């Protein structure tokens, strides 16, 4: 049976999962642990000089935003940006990148809501990169290289990518596969804490919450549906997503009590004095 479009509409099957993330921007300190964890977990190659962020690979990238005001009103916000795993218009799986890939090298899973990247099928046309408004996709401009000793630390669960293909955050999909294997073997459902992304676990401030947006028991569901059980995380704030007005339907939600941060994330409520990226940041 082929998967039908739309979450939870698989005939004869239990509703599909829709994994997503809630990032508390008021908690994020910008330490970059999520970026480091992501790179280590997913065998992301490095370059001797990573200062040019336009040609280095950072599946998870922390942006440093400023409200553009002078002291004493100056404020800074660190905004971690993984792949948004967009559901596309009407949340039907037509993500901006998936629909444009000419070789079906990136796909949308109606079972998990995760946008995958098939490295061995990608031929490097980079159309998906142009389609992604979040710049969450990266091209391997160079052959992947690691310092000699670091090769021993590469994860055997994640394939390394060759020069000339596009890659991006997978929500640590290999962790999902591993957890599902165990759950299947033990004939039980997947528990919330069994499948967590590396960035979620690495965040020392606990700013990232990850889980199934379709599962009422998961915290991400409670937070995004503003249910009372999520109050501890919500603290009166309303979750928002980046560029919601474009109908990309991202699965990454953000929280902030600061109005200018919320406005920075949504072009539809942008104000005259836009938030600006602080170029002095180290990320």
């Amino acid at each position, binding site marked *: 049976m082929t998967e039908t479009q739309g979450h939870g509409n698989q005939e004869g099957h239990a509703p599909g999962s829709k994994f997503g993330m809630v990032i508390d921007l008021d908690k994020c300190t910008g330490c970059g642990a999520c970026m480091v964890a992501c790179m280590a977990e997913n065998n992301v190659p490095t370059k001797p000089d990573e200062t040019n962020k336009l040609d280095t690979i950072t599946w998870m990238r922390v942006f440093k935003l400023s409200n553009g005001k002078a002291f004493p009103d100056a404020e800074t916000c660190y905004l971690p940006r993984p792949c948004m795993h967009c559901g596309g218009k009407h949340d039907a799986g037509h993500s901006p990148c998936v629909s444009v890939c000419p070789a079906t090298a990136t796909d949308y899973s109606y079972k998990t809501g995760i946008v995958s990247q098939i490295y061995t099928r990608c031929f490097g046309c980079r159309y998906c990169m142009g*389609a992604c408004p979040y*710049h969450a996709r990266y091209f391997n401009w160079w052959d992947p290289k690691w310092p000699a000793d670091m090769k021993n630390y590469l994860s055997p669960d994640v394939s390394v990518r060759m020069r000339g293909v596009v890659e991006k955050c997978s929500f640590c999909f290999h962790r999902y596969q591993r957890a599902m294997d165990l759950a299947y073997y033990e004939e039980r459902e997947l528990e919330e804490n069994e499948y967590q992304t590396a960035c979620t676990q690495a965040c020392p401030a606990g700013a990232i919450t990850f889980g199934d947006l379709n599962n009422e028991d998961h915290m991400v569901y409670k937070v995004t549906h503003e249910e009372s059980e999520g109050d501890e995380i919500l603290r009166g704030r309303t979750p928002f997503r980046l560029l919601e007005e474009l109908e990309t339907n991202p699965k990454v939600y953000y929280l902030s009590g600061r109005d200018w941060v919320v406005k920075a994330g949504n072009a539809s409520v*942008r104000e005259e004095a836009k938030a600006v990226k602080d170029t002095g940041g180290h990320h």
Partner: protein
Amino acid sequence: MEAAYQKIVRLESQLHPLGVQRAPLWQFVLWMGFFGTILLWGVYAMFLCWFKGLNQTNMNDSYGFALWIWADLGVIAVGGGAFFTGLLRYVVGKDPLKYIINYAVLIGFICYSSALLILAIDIGQPLRGWFIFWHANVHSMLTEVAFCLSCYFGVLCIEYIPLVLENRKIDEVPIFHHTSHNFHEVMAIFAATGAFLSFFHQGSLGGVAGVLYGRPFAYRPEFFIWPTTFFLFTWSAAACGPCFTILVTKITEAITRKKLVKDNVVELLAKIAGWMLLTYSIAKIIDTLYWAFVMLPKHNLHVLDFFTNQSLIYSKLGGVPWILVVEILCSVIPAVILVTKKGRQNKPALIVAVFLGSMCALINRWVMVLQVMAVPVLTFETFALYFPSWQELATTILPVAYGVLLISLSHRYLPVFPQERELNPV
């Protein structure tokens, strides 16, 4: 030595079409050598890109599509003269265009083969290029481009082959003579097929940008299942392609210092191009207004937001987004010149019009490729600027050199211009 050279000259002259005069061989060799050197420079850069990867370029993760894709879309647009002139000649029945169709086909062949070559350099894994056919995603505009482009290049080959077979020496071989003759007999079918395929690949190239709903600068409303850019690209190719055909014809006439096509033929094609440009400019203006005043406000965006960069190209001059205005003027001005008989018959005005008409497509493709990549979408991002590396420039100049070489060879050895003998009696 002198005798040997004279012998070569005599033998080589037997390959020329009958009854025409060609430049001395030494001059031709020098000319070919100059452009051949440029070609080799481009080929060297091409191999660097293939062997060392796309790190040889200045493209980056913000500029995944850059100079090459612009060149690709540009040559396909101006190469549109082949399909549209073919359609007019063989399907609509504009008979006088038979005197320029060979050249239109040759220009189209050069443009499309260049486009395919550029694509082969542009992809990160060239050896996997065939995946676009094997693992085709039918929802992707690029898939449609790949299929229609490849098929249409096949059609152009079929249209160009009879011309090659008409070389004086080749034509002496009966099988080639008959093959060429029979190809001409069925050319209407290929012209119609070419027009059909071109409609889709020119359109789907427009769709490449128009479907990007994550990028408000490029995204356009759908008409049936295609964004409006689909139709605008096809329309502009049909309008600007003939302008480019006329422009190259005039350049060729200037270089060879000979009249090659009669004025009535050029004026007929110019008139049709003029009306196509006029209707295109109206459609383009309506599309731009709808985008600016209906679509952008939905995102709380203003058209001027896309022209706030400090660089010259994406800035405003006197509060006006000049590149957008120039793009539209490049369709309106030539349209006004070409639809009037006086304008068409005025030589300098005609040259200006076909030059602007060609620029119209090239600027439009620039905006729909490079500016799409440059403008920020996230509110906290800034304009991304880019300047191509020498490898990118060399590989973009490569098709120009290749085009000059192929035109030079074709003009010297093939009867490209049927009216040449009549217009230049030896």
